[in-house]
C-alpha cells in the first residue's frame, strides 16, 4: 500500500476537474442531440409513424430458393422442382382466421371440393402474421380462391417450390427426401435456417444440402389491411442451389427396378473401372414425393410398420449371408496360400463328415471328383467344405478383408452397414465361446456368421474384374452451379488392393465365366452371347434346415424362411465395364431367380450402348417411340 495518497508524482486533480467539465459538456450535448431526435420521431413525426405501425405495413417476406436439380450421368433430370400452391390467411381484427376458414370451406362446398386444413388454426392470432390454411392444393382450388377473392379478405395463394421426384420410388433410396426444417435443426443454430425453410432429410438430399439448398431471398412489401400487397419496397432475389450430376444411369436404374417386379431385394451395378455406381435399387421402396409438404400421419405409420422396411436402403444396409458367392473368396485364399492347385481334385459324394455330423452338398448324389474350376462352375459345397477346413476361419477372414468385406465401403450415403466376417477372436470376444470346427465348414460356403451387403459384394467382384483394385463406390460426379461452372468434382478414389497373383485372378475369372457359359454352370440364366458374362450364383439359407430328407419335405417353409437368391457378375470378361450384384429376398435359388434379374440389368446396359452408338451413326434416336 505504498502508493497511498499518490497524486504526488502524477497529473493533478485540478487538471482532471478541467477535463471532466469539458467531457460532461460534450456528454450533455450528445444527450441533447438524442433527446432532440426522440422529440423529432415521437412528437413531430409521431402521428405519421403511429399510423404506419398500425397499418403495418412494411413486412419482410422470405422467398424460398429453388433447390438444385439432381441429374443422372447423361444429364437426365431425376429430381426436379415444381410449384406448390398454399392457401394463406393474413388475419385482420375484423376477419379472424376461423371466420375466413369457414368462408373458404363454404366456397369449396358449392363445388363439392373437399376442404383439408393443414393444421389446427391458432387460437390466438396476430394481425399481420400469416397463417397457413391449406398446403399443396389443386389447381381447381387455386381457381376457386382467386375467383372468390372479393369475399375472402386477407386470403391469398402463396407459391413455393417443392421437389418433384421424377423416378419416385425407383430413385428414393439414393436421393432420400426433403421436408420443412425441424425444430431440432432450427435450435442447433447451424445452417442459418428460418422456420418454413426446406431442407434435405435423408439420402443425397441431406448430404448435398449445403450445395443444393440455395440461398433464401427476401422482399420488403407494404400490405393493406386485407393483407394484399400494395407496394414492393425492395427485393433480394433468392439464389438457386447448385445442380448435382450423379454416376447413376437413369435408364439402367429403371431397368433394375422393373427387373425386380415388386419382389423384395436389392441390386447394385458398378463400373469396376472406377467405382461409379450405375444403378442402385432397393425394393420395396417409398415415394419421396409424399414427404414434400409433410407426410400424412397414417402414411408415415404405414411406412414405419411395414415389415419389409421400405424406408431402408437394402443395397447398403441390408446384411445377408453371401452364400455361394463367397466361394470365389475361399478359392482365392486356397490358391494364394498354396493349399490347392487348380488341378487338385476332391471327390464329392453328396456329404462331408466332420465330428459325427454330415454336411450336405446341394446336389444330393454328389458331383463326383471335381477340380477347382468345376467346383466353382457347379458350385460344389463339399469341395469348399474340404478346402475351407484346411484354410481355417482366420485365413478366410484375412482374404475376405482384402476384398473389403466386413468393413464400410465408404459410399457417400449414411447408414451403411459393415456386414460381418467372423474370426476366432471375434467369436470369443462376442459370444465368450471358442470357435467350433463345424463353423468353419459353414462359413466356407458363405453361411453361418457371414454377413455382407449387396454393395460390398459388387465391390469385391469389381476388384477381381479390374485386376485387383478396390475403388470407393461413388454416386456423385460433380456439383455444378446453374450457369454451368463446376463447383466441386468428386474423383474416383482407390481404397485398397486385393493383392492376388495374376495367375490366381485368371483362374478365378475363367471359372466365373464357366458358371455362366459352360454346360452344367449354375448361372446360365445370365448368359449373353457376345459379352462373356462372368458370375457366381448364391443361395443363402435363412435358417438351418432340418437334416433328414423326410422332415424337410414335411415342413412347409414359410415365406420368411425361404432362401435368399444371390447373383454377382461382371462383363465383359476382358476389360469389364459393369459389375452387378443382385439379392432377392426369400425368393429361392440364385441361378433361378437372381441371375435373370442381373441379366435384365446387363441387357439394359449393353443394349443402351448399342442404341447410343446407332444414334451417333444415324443421327436420330432409333429407340424413340418404343
Amino acid at each position, binding site marked *: 500500500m505504498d502508493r497511498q495518497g499518490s497524486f504526488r*508524482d502524477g497529473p493533478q486533480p485540478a487538471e482532471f476537474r478541467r477535463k471532466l467539465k469539458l467531457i460532461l459538456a460534450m456528454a450533455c450535448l450528445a444527450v441533447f442531440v438524442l433527446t432532440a431526435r426522440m422529440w423529432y420521431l415521437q412528437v413531430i413525426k409521431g402521428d405519421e409513424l403511429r399510423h404506419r405501425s398500425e397499418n403495418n405495413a412494411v413486412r419482410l417476406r422470405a422467398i424460398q430458393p429453388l433447390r438444385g436439380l439432381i441429374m443422372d450421368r447423361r444429364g437426365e433430370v431425376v429430381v426436379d422442382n415444381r410449384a406448390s400452391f398454399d392457401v394463406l390467411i393474413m388475419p385482420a381484427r375484423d376477419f379472424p382466421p376461423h371466420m375466413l376458414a369457414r368462408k373458404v370451406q363454404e366456397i369449396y362446398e358449392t363445388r363439392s371440393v373437399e376442404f383439408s386444413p393443414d393444421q389446427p388454426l391458432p387460437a390466438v392470432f396476430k394481425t399481420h402474421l400469416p397463417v397457413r390454411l391449406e398446403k399443396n392444393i389443386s389447381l381447381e382450388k387455386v381457381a376457386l380462391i382467386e375467383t372468390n377473392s372479393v369475399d375472402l379478405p386477407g386470403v391469398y395463394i402463396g407459391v413455393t417450390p417443392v421437389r418433384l421426384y421424377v423416378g419416385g420410388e425407383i430413385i428414393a433410396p439414393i436421393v432420400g427426401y426433403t421436408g420443412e426444417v425441424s425444430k431440432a435443426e432450427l435450435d442447433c443454430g447451424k445452417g442459418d435456417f428460418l422456420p418454413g425453410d426446406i431442407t434435405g432429410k435423408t439420402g443425397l438430399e441431406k448430404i448435398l444440402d449445403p450445395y443444393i439448398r440455395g440461398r433464401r431471398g427476401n422482399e420488403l412489401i407494404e400490405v393493406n389491411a386485407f393483407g394484399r400487397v400494395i407496394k414492393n419496397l425492395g427485393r433480394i432475389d433468392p439464389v438457386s442451389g447448385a445442380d448435382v450430376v450423379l454416376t447413376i444411369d437413369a435408364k439402367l436404374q429403371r431397368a433394375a427396378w422393373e427387373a425386380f417386379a415388386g419382389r423384395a431385394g436389392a441390386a447394385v451395378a458398378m463400373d469396376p473401372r472406377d467405382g461409379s455406381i450405375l444403378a442402385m435399387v432397393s425394393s420395396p421402396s417409398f415415394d419421396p414425393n409424399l414427404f414434400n409438404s409433410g407426410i400424412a400421419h397414417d402414411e408415415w405409420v404405414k411406412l414405419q410398420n411395414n415389415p419389409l422396411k421400405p424406408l431402408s436402403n437394402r443395397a447398403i444396409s441390408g446384411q445377408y449371408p453371401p452364400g455361394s458367392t463367397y466361394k470365389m473368396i475361399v478359392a482365392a485364399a486356397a490358391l494364394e496360400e498354396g493349399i490347392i492347385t487348380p488341378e487338385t481334385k476332391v471327390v464329392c459324394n453328396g456329404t462331408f463328415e466332420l465330428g459325427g455330423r454330415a454336411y450336405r452338398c446341394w446336389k444330393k448324389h454328389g458331383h463326383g471328383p471335381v477340380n477347382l474350376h468345376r467346383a466353382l462352375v457347379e458350385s460344389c459345397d463339399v469341395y469348399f467344405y474340404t478346402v475351407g477346413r484346411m484354410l481355417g476361419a482366420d485365413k478366410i477372414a484375412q482374404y475376405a478383408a482384402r476384398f473389403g468385406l466386413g468393413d464400410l465401403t465408404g459410399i457417400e450415403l449414411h447408414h451403411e452397414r459393415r456386414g460381418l466376417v467372423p474370426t476366432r477372436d471375434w467369436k470369443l470376444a462376442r459370444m465368450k465361446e471358442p470357435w467350433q470346427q463345424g463353423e468353419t465348414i459353414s462359413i466356407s460356403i458363405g453361411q453361418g456368421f457371414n454377413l455382407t451387403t449387396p454393395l460390398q459384394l459388387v465391390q469385391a467382384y469389381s476388384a477381381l474384374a479390374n485386376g485387383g483394385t478396390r475403388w470407393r463406390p461413388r454416386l456423385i460426379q460433380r456439383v455444378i452451379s446453374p450457369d454451368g461452372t463446376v463447383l466441386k468434382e468428386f474423383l474416383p478414389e482407390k481404397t485398397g488392393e486385393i493383392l492376388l497373383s495374376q495367375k490366381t485372378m485368371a483362374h478365378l475369372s475363367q471359372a466365373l465365366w464357366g458358371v455362366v457359359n459352360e454346360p452344367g454352370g449354375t448361372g446360365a440364366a445370365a448368359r449373353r452371347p457376345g459379352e462373356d458374362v462372368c458370375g457366381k450364383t448364391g443361395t443363402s439359407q435363412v435358417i438351418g434346415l432340418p437334416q433328414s430328407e423326410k422332415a424337410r419335405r414335411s415342413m412347409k417353409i414359410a415365406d420368411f424362411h425361404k432362401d435368399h437368391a444371390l447373383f454377382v457378375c461382371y462383363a465383359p470378361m476382358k476389360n469389364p465395364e459393369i459389375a452387378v450384384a443382385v439379392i432377392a429376398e426369400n425368393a429361392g435359388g440364385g441361378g433361378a431367380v437372381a441371375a435373370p434379374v442381373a441379366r435384365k440389368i446387363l441387357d439394359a446396359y449393353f443394349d443402351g450402348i448399342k442404341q447410343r452408338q446407332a444414334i451417333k451413326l444415324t443421327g436420330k434416336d432409333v429407340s424413340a417411340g418404343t
Partner: protein
Amino acid sequence: MFFFRYDRRIFQNFDWTLFALVMGICAIGVVNIYSTGFGLGENSPQLYLKQIQWIILGLFLMAISFLIDYRVIAQAAYVIYGILLASLVYVAFFGHMANGAQRWISFGFVLLQPSEFMKIAVIIVLARYFDDHKSREPYLLRELFLPLALVLIPFVFIIRQPDLGTALMILIVAVSLVLFIGVYWKSIIIAAASAVVMMPLAWLFLKDYQKHRLFSFLSPESDPLGSGYHIIQSMIAIGSGGVLGKGFLRGSQTQLKFLPEQQTDFVFSVFAEEWGFVGGVVLMVMFMSLMVWGFRIALHSRDLLGTILAFGITALIGWEVIINLGMVLGLLPVVGIPLPFFSYGGSAMASMLAAVGLLMNISVRRFILQR
C-alpha cells in the same frame, strides 16, 4: 479473507445514490424484457426470469468488487487480464457458436461471454499501468506502446469472433482514458494519422455483414431489407410511441415482432414504443445522472488509481448509452452495442454490475484513505 479488512466506515458511507440508480434502471429493464416476451406462448423462454437470475449473480460480483480494496484489485490487474485473455483464446478455438459468431464459453447450464468481462479488465489493467508510470508531463507516444498492445490483443480476438461492437467499445474506452490522463497534441495528431493509414487494414478484419452494415448506415435506402430494415422498424416503433407511449404490453411493433433484436440491442425501441417520449426522457435522465455521479467519484478519489478507474468505468457506461441510443434512433450505424443494465444479456449484466461495485468501492474509500 486476508485482503479484506473490515471497516465500519465502508457501510456508513455506502453510496446509496449510485446503487439506487443502477438498480432502478435494472428493474425497469426487467419489466421491459417481460413485455418483449409477452404473448409468445408458454414454451417460449422466459427471458425476464433469466435476466433476474443474472442480476442476482451480478450482485454477488458487485459485493466482491465492492468489498475488496480497489488497490488490491489493481494489484491483481495483470492476473485478471491474463485469465480473460486466455479465455478469449479458448473461445477462438473451442467456443460455443450461435448466430454465426463464436463468442461464448459453455459451462453446460450457462454460457459466458468473456469479451464482456474483458471490457472491465482492460480498464483495470490500464489504470494499473498509468498508476505505475506516473508522470506530471503528458505522455509521449512511445510510452503508450505497452498500453496499446494491452488493448489491441483482446481487440483482435474479439473482432474475429466476430463482435465489432464489443471490440470497438474497448478501443473507444481506452482512447478516452489516454486522452483523459493526458498526451501531447502532437502525439494525438500522429496517432490519429497512423490510425487513418491503418484503416484499410482494419477493413480486412471486418466480416461481410459488418461491411454491409456500415454501407447500409451510409445509405439506408440502398438496403431496405438488411440492416436498413432494422433501423426502419426501430424508428417506426419509437415514433409510434408518441408523447405518452402505447402503454405496457401494447406496443404493436414489439408484440408483432417487427422489431429485430428486441431484447438485446434494440431494447430501447420497445421501451420508447410503450412508454413514449416521457418514458424515454426519464430513462435518459437516469443514465445522465449515473454519468455525472460516476465522474464525481472520479474527481473526488484520493488517488490517481481511483480517478482513472472511476473515469474508465463511467466512460464505458456513457459511451455504451450514447452509441446504443444513437443506433436505435437511426443516428449511428448498427454495431451491436447493448444498453447497459437494460438490454437482455447475462455476461454484460454481470460484468457491468461488477464494474459498478468497483465504482462504489472507490466512492466509499475516499472517506477512508488519506490524501
